[in-house]
């Protein structure tokens, strides 16, 4: 394969992040505040403890950027879990193979019933999710599901196990409009500790997935790290670098970044690097200043009050009325979801919240071609 973000990532192999972050001075942040476009180390300095002192002026800048690029608009989407079978054993995940939870895979007919229920709420963008089990939920099955969803939604984004370029091309031809794939952590050592078995233990195959999708001409690509697994500064930094790398190589791609935070779930994983609200806001603002054009999504992992406060700081997309169980909308759902939903508001309630903030909730922001 051609050049990969992996090359840029490994270039930071000997970089001393701790020392850099500790040595950021006030003047550094003040200087970054005056700049129109940020270098990678400017971006990193915004993730330092020192930058917290400037959170308010940084937030003001972030808001200016967001308004200029996206206006007073928040797009809505809903997740749809089609299967929770999984061959991986990610230590932190509720769907991991060794968890004895109820497993379910929706038939294509059941996917349609879920789709109908979601579509009733007015939502026109859907995120299709599945656990990683190529035997139970193969690409051919996902393709059929996408074709059904296309009858109800104007944009179908997939959040599934990483595929080859040809497989992405197949799903794009079937109507997949976007890809969401999180690296979980960019720290290779930590990645291998957390993903001991199953196909997901291949760090590089996952890292290059957004690139393979872009090569296959995926329109929209969303990346992120699962915050709380390791040092957040490093993971947010590499997420930003990954985004910028993709943006440069594939300028036609609509890039998005998410900030999923680890939440309590069915496993017994102890989150040793839990991210505070303040650090989440800091990460989001830093990303907005580094990548002014990137969409930023926030899911119902976060509670209603925080979600409301994040509008205006950089968020451009929100999930609403979400169910993270398989069959959660219209069927006899599984008991456990992939994570606990903190914002249980209905779609109408989320819309109302956005309107109260002086923004417009938008259910359709893409026209399937």
């Amino acid at each position, binding site marked *: 394969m051609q050049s990969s973000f992996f090359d840029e990532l490994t270039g930071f192999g000997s970089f001393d992040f701790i020392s850099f972050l500790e040595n950021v001075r006030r003047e550094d942040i003040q200087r970054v505040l005056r700049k129109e476009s940020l270098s990678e180390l400017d971006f990193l300095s915004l993730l330092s403890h020192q930058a917290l002192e400037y959170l308010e002026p940084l937030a003001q800048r972030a808001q200016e950027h967001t308004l200029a690029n996206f206006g007073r608009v928040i797009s809505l989407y809903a997740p749809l879990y089609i299967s929770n079978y999984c061959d991986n054993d990610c230590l932190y995940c509720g769907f991991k193979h060794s968890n004895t939870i109820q497993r379910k895979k929706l038939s294509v007919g059941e996917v349609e019933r879920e789709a109908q229920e979601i579509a009733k709420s007015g939502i026109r963008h859907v995120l299709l999710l599945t656990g990683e089990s190529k035997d139970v939920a193969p690409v051919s099955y996902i393709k059929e599901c996408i074709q059904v969803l296309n009858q109800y939604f104007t944009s179908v984004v997939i959040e599934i196990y990483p595929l080859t370029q040809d497989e992405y091309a197949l799903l794009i031809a079937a109507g997949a409009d976007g890809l969401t794939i999180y690296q979980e952590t960019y720290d290779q050592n930590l990645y291998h500790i957390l993903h001991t078995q199953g196909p997901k233990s291949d760090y590089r195959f996952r890292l290059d997935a957004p690139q393979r999708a872009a090569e296959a001409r995926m329109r929209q690509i969303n990346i992120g790290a699962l915050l709380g697994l390791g040092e957040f500064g490093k993971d947010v930094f590499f997420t930003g670098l990954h985004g910028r790398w993709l943006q440069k190589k594939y*300028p036609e791609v609509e890039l998005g970044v998410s900030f999923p935070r680890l939440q309590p779930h069915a496993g017994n994983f102890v989150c040793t690097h839990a991210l505070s609200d303040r650090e989440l806001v800091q990460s989001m603002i830093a990303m907005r200043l580094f990548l002014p054009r990137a969409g930023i999504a926030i899911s119902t992992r976060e509670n209603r009050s925080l979600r409301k406060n994040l509008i205006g700081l950089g968020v451009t997309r929100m999930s609403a009325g979400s169910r993270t169980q398989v069959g959660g909308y219209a069927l006899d759902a599984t008991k456990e979801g992939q994570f606990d939903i903190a914002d249980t508001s209905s779609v109408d309630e989320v819309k109302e919240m956005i309107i109260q903030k002086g923004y417009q909730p938008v259910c*359709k922001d*893409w026209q399937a071609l």
Partner: protein
Amino acid sequence: MEDHLIIAGQVIKNRFFLGTGKFASYPLMKDAIIASRAQMVTVAVRRVDTQAAQDNILKYIPKECIIMANTSGARNADEAVRIARIARAAGCGNWIKIEIIPDNKYLLPDNVQTIQATEVLAKEGFIVMPYMNPDLADARRLYDAGAASIMPLGAPIGTNKGVCLRELIKILVEEISLPIVVDAGIGRPSHAAEAMELGAAAVLVNTAVATAEDPVLTAQAFSLAVKAGRLAYRAGVAAAKDNAEASSPLTGFLR
């Protein structure tokens, strides 16, 4: 004589065109259209949801307006053509702003693809309004392809930086026998007036209005600035010169 703008045989009374994206609500957008008396409004097809009961943007556009659908999100000529056809099928009429952007960072248009899409859509009977990088040779190609106007950007979309490309736009005004509509980058009413003083036929604004503290008042201000700029152009208000020019002619004694 009335100084109306005519595009594709249609009289357009207001030279201030308004974009409908980025507003905090559709009612607010509607108020801005009414207050500014904008007649030409552009609507992104990607946003139009004809199935939505309340959230259909088209319901908030006053009947007297001309809707110019735009192909926002198109990355090449083929996608733009498909979006244009969807727009027509959805009842948006024949006016189409071709916006082909293969660059999501700067949102700069692709002139080559834009020329191709213009040729196809003009043949299909669309009134084609292509958004472009101000380049004379490409503007001539758009003219040949059947464009109804040329819409060069003043500065990249959403930057509010003003008529940064004024020298190139001036050349289009001089050389192209089509209305030149300055689109994108206009951040203040004074920028809009400047574009009109240069001889632009109209100005299209979106971000600066939609994201203003008071979009309704801001839209009115833009509309007035466009009128003032137009009057100044017609009045031949002295343009800045590169060389000094004596106010009393030096050769006036020669009879």
